[in-house]
C-alpha cells in the first residue's frame, strides 16, 4: 500500500516577520550603543537609537572552516533603521578588502531551513492489513527563531585605522589599538556610545592582539541599491583559533540572547571545548495538535532543555552530511551556496545539489553542525571555543506525529488496535509534558480537539 507523499515547510510567525524586516547584521557579541542609543552586536555590536527597540535577541552565525581557513558570516534579526546599524567584530588579523563580502540573505535562510528541527507525520496502517509499514507523509520545520567621520587621529593614542573599505552598503574600517581607552574614544567620537562594561572586554581583546572590524551603513549607497534590508557580512581569515567571541554581546545585555551557529566543516561534527555540548531531545512521539503549534512547542522544549543544563549547555539541533538528508526539511544547499558561505572545498560543479535521501558515495562534501546557545554573562563568562571532531554520525531534532487509522475496520485486530490507542495518546501526552513542562491537563484538553483522548484523561 502506498500513501501519498507530501512535504510542507512552515515557518514561524516570528521568523516570517524577521525575514520581512530583512536579516541584517549580526549580533552575537555585544550590546553597545551608538551615539544616540542602544546597540547590540556580534562580537562587537550593532547599534540603534535610544528609542529604538533592541532586536538582537537572536542571531545567526555561519562558521565555515577547513584547516585554519575560516569564514564567518553574521546575520541577525536587526529591524532598526539601516542608518543606525553598526557592527564591531574582533578579528584575529588585519583584513584585506578581498577578505570581506556580503552574502545573500536567502542562502543563510536556506541553511537555516535545511537544518531546522522537524516534525514528521506517520499514518497508522489499516490494522486489518498487518504487513503495511508506515512512511513519512508530511514534514514541517520550526525555525527558532545592521559614513564614519574622521576626527584627527592624534586624539586617539595607539589607535590605528589600518584600512577603510566600501563593500556593498557598508563602510568598513579595520582598527588596531594599543589601549582600550583610545579605541573607545575613537568609537565614541565616530558615533558609537560604548557602555562602561565593554571597556575591559575590549581591553582584553586588544591584549590578545586582535584587530577590530567596524562596519556602518552608507545610506546613500544603501538607497541606491534599492534593497529593503541589509545583507549579512562575511569576513574570511586564517586563524588557529576556532572560536566565537560572545563576551561583548553580554555587556549591557537585556536578558539572555539566543545564537544559532551553523558550522560547516569537512571532517565532521563541531563541539564546544569549554562548555558541554548536548543534544536537544529528539525522536519523540507527540500528540497531533503539535502540527498546528510546532514553533511554540519547540520554543517551550528548548526553554526546558536550557533550564535542565542550568543554561550552561551548547545544544546540537542538527549534525549531518550536507550531501543528503532524511527527511529533508529543505533541499540541500548547492555548491554555489556552500561556496558563498565559505565552504568552497565542496566537490562538484556549480550546478544545483542533487537531493539524496540516502548517504551518497561521493567524496565527503561539507558536514553541517547546527548549535543553539542561549547565553548571558553569568552562564557564559568565556568566549565559545570549538573543536572539529571526525564524528560523522547523524543527528536531527525530530518529533513524530502518528495519525490513528481513520478508515473502517472491523477485524479482531482492529478492536485490539483501537483499544490500544488511549494508552498511546497518554504516552504522547506524557512525552509532550516532559518536553515542554506543560501540564498534562492542558495537553489532554488540546488533544481532545484533534480526537485523541489519552487514557485516564476525562
Amino acid at each position, binding site marked *: 500500500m502506498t500513501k501519498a507523499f507530501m512535504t510542507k515547510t512552515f515557518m514561524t510567525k516570528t521568523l516570517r516577520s524577521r525575514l520581512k524586516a530583512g536579516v541584517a547584521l549580526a549580533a552575537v557579541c555585544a550590546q553597545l550603543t551608538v551615539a544616540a542609543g542602544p546597540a547590540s552586536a556580534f562580537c562587537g555590536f550593532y547599534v540603534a537609537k535610544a528609542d529604538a527597540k533592541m532586536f538582537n535577541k537572536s542571531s545567526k552565525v555561519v562558521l565555515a572552516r577547513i584547516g585554519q581557513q575560516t569564514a564567518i558570516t553574521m546575520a541577525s534579526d536587526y529591524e532598526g533603521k539601516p542608518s543606525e546599524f553598526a557592527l564591531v567584530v574582533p578579528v584575529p588579523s588585519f583584513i584585506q578588502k578581498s577578505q570581506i563580502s556580503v552574502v545573500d540573505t536567502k542562502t543563510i535562510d536556506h541553511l537555516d531551513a535545511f537544518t531546522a528541527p522537524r516534525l514528521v507525520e506517520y499514518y497508522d496502517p489499516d490494522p486489518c492489513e498487518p504487513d503495511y509499514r508506515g512512511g513519512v507523509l508530511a514534514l514541517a520545520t520550526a525555525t527558532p527563531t545592521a559614513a564614519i567621520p574622521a576626527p584627527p587621529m592624534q586624539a586617539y593614542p595607539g589607535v590605528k585605522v589600518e584600512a577603510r573599505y566600501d563593500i556593498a552598503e557598508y563602510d568598513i574600517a579595520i582598527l588596531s589599538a594599543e589601549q582600550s581607552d583610545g579605541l573607545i574614544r575613537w568609537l565614541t567620537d565616530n558615533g558609537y556610545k560604548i557602555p562602561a562594561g565593554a571597556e*575591559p572586554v575590549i*581591553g*582584553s581583546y586588544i*591584549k*590578545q592582539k586582535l584587530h577590530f572590524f567596524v562596519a556602518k551603513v552608507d545610506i546613500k549607497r544603501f538607497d541606491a541599491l534599492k534593497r529593503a534590508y541589509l545583507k549579512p557580512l562575511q569576513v574570511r581569515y586564517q586563524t*588557529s*583559533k*576556532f572560536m566565537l567571541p560572545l563576551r561583548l554581546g553580554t555587556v549591557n545585555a537585556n536578558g539572555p540572547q539566543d545564537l544559532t551557529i551553523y558550522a560547516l566543516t569537512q*571532517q*565532521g*561534527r563541531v*563541539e*564546544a*571545548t*569549554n*562548555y*558541554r*555540548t*548536548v*543534544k536537544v531531545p529528539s525522536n519523540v512521539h507527540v500528540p497531533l495538535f503539535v502540527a498546528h503549534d510546532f514553533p511554540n512547542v519547540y520554543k517551550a522544549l528548548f526553554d526546558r532543555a536550557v533550564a535542565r*543544563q*542550568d543554561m*550552561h*549547555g*551548547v545544544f*546540537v539541533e542538527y549534525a549531518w552530511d550536507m550531501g543528503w538528508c532524511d527527511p529533508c526539511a529543505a533541499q540541500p544547499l548547492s555548491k554555489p551556496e556552500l561556496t558563498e558561505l565559505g565552504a568552497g572545498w565542496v566537490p562538484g560543479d556549480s550546478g544545483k545539489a542533487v537531493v539524496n535521501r540516502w548517504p551518497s558515495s561521493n567524496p565527503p562534501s561539507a558536514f553541517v553542525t547546527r548549535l543553539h546557545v542561549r547565553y548571558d554573562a*553569568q552562564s557564559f*563568562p*568565556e568566549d565559545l571555543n570549538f*573543536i*572539529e*571532531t*571526525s*564524528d*560523522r554520525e547523524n543527528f536531527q531534532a525530530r518529533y513524530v506525529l502518528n495519525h490513528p487509522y481513520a478508515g473502517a475496520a472491523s477485524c479482531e485486530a482492529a478492536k485490539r488496535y483501537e483499544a490500544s490507542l488511549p494508552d498511546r495518546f497518554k504516552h504522547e501526552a506524557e512525552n509532550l509534558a516532559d518536553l515542554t513542562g506543560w501540564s498534562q491537563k492542558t495537553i489532554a484538553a488540546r488533544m481532545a480537539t484533534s480526537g485523541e483522548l489519552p487514557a485516564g484523561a476525562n
Partner: protein
Amino acid sequence: MRTFWSDARHFQIAALSSLLLFNFFLIDFGAKPLYSALAIAAALLTQVVCTRLSGSTRIDLRSPLITGLSLSLLLRANSAWLPALAGIAAIASKFALRVDGRHIFNPAGFAIVLLLSLTSGVWISPGQWGTSIWLASLLVFLALLVLRAAQRSDIALFFLGAHGALLVARAYWLGDPLAIPLHQMQSGSLLIFAFFMISDPKTTPDSRLARFLFALAVAALGYYLAFFMQMRPALYVALIVLSPATPLLNRVIPAKKFEWTPTIQGASS
C-alpha cells in the same frame, strides 16, 4: 579489606568505572560501550602478550585495566579499531619505552597523544564533562581517595595550583573577570587529567621537590601550548613531552622508588 584498598589501583578502578558509567548514561557524545570494551580488551591482551614476551610469569591486569578505562573516558574515535589500537599502543609503550627499569610515559596519555598526532579519526572532548560543581566535587572526592592511597596526591595539587595560578595571572593581565579562570578551573576534564593522569605514581618523580618542579613545568608548557599554539589537547601533550624528564629528575633528586603494593611495615602501620 584494608589491605585490598591499600593498593591505590583498586580505588582507581572503582573511580574510573563509576565515571565511565556516568559517561555512558549521562553524557551526550560520550563514551561508546563497544569502543570502551575494545580499548580495555586490547590493553589487557597486550599486557598478557608483552608480559609473556618479556619472560615474566606474573601477569597483573590491574594497571592495563586502568589504562583501558582512562582511554575509554578520554579518547573519542570514529571507528572501532582506533580505541583498540590506542589500548595496544598504550601498553606496548609501557614495555618498550623504559629507563632505569621503569616506563617513561603514562600509558593512556602516551596513546592519546600518539593517536591524535597520527590520525584524524580521534579527538578528545574536553567540554563534555561540563562545569557542574557537584560533578567537580564528586571527582575530587573520588580522586582524593585514589591519591591518598597512592601517596602521591601532592603532584595533582601542585599541578592544579600552578595551572590555576597561570589562569588567574592571565585573567589579571587581560583585565578579565575572575569568572573566566574559575570557569576554566571547573572543567571536569581538567580534574580527570590532574587526578588520574599526571598523578600516575609510576611515571611521576620520586621526590616531592621533583614532583613540584615537574607539575610546574607541565602547567607552564600546557599554558603555552593552549594559549599560544591554540592546541586543544595541550595538557596531554605537555605531560608526554615532559615525561622523559622524570628519570632525569629521579637521578638528580633521588628518593624512594614507588611500589603499588606497600611494604609489610607500610601495610601494617
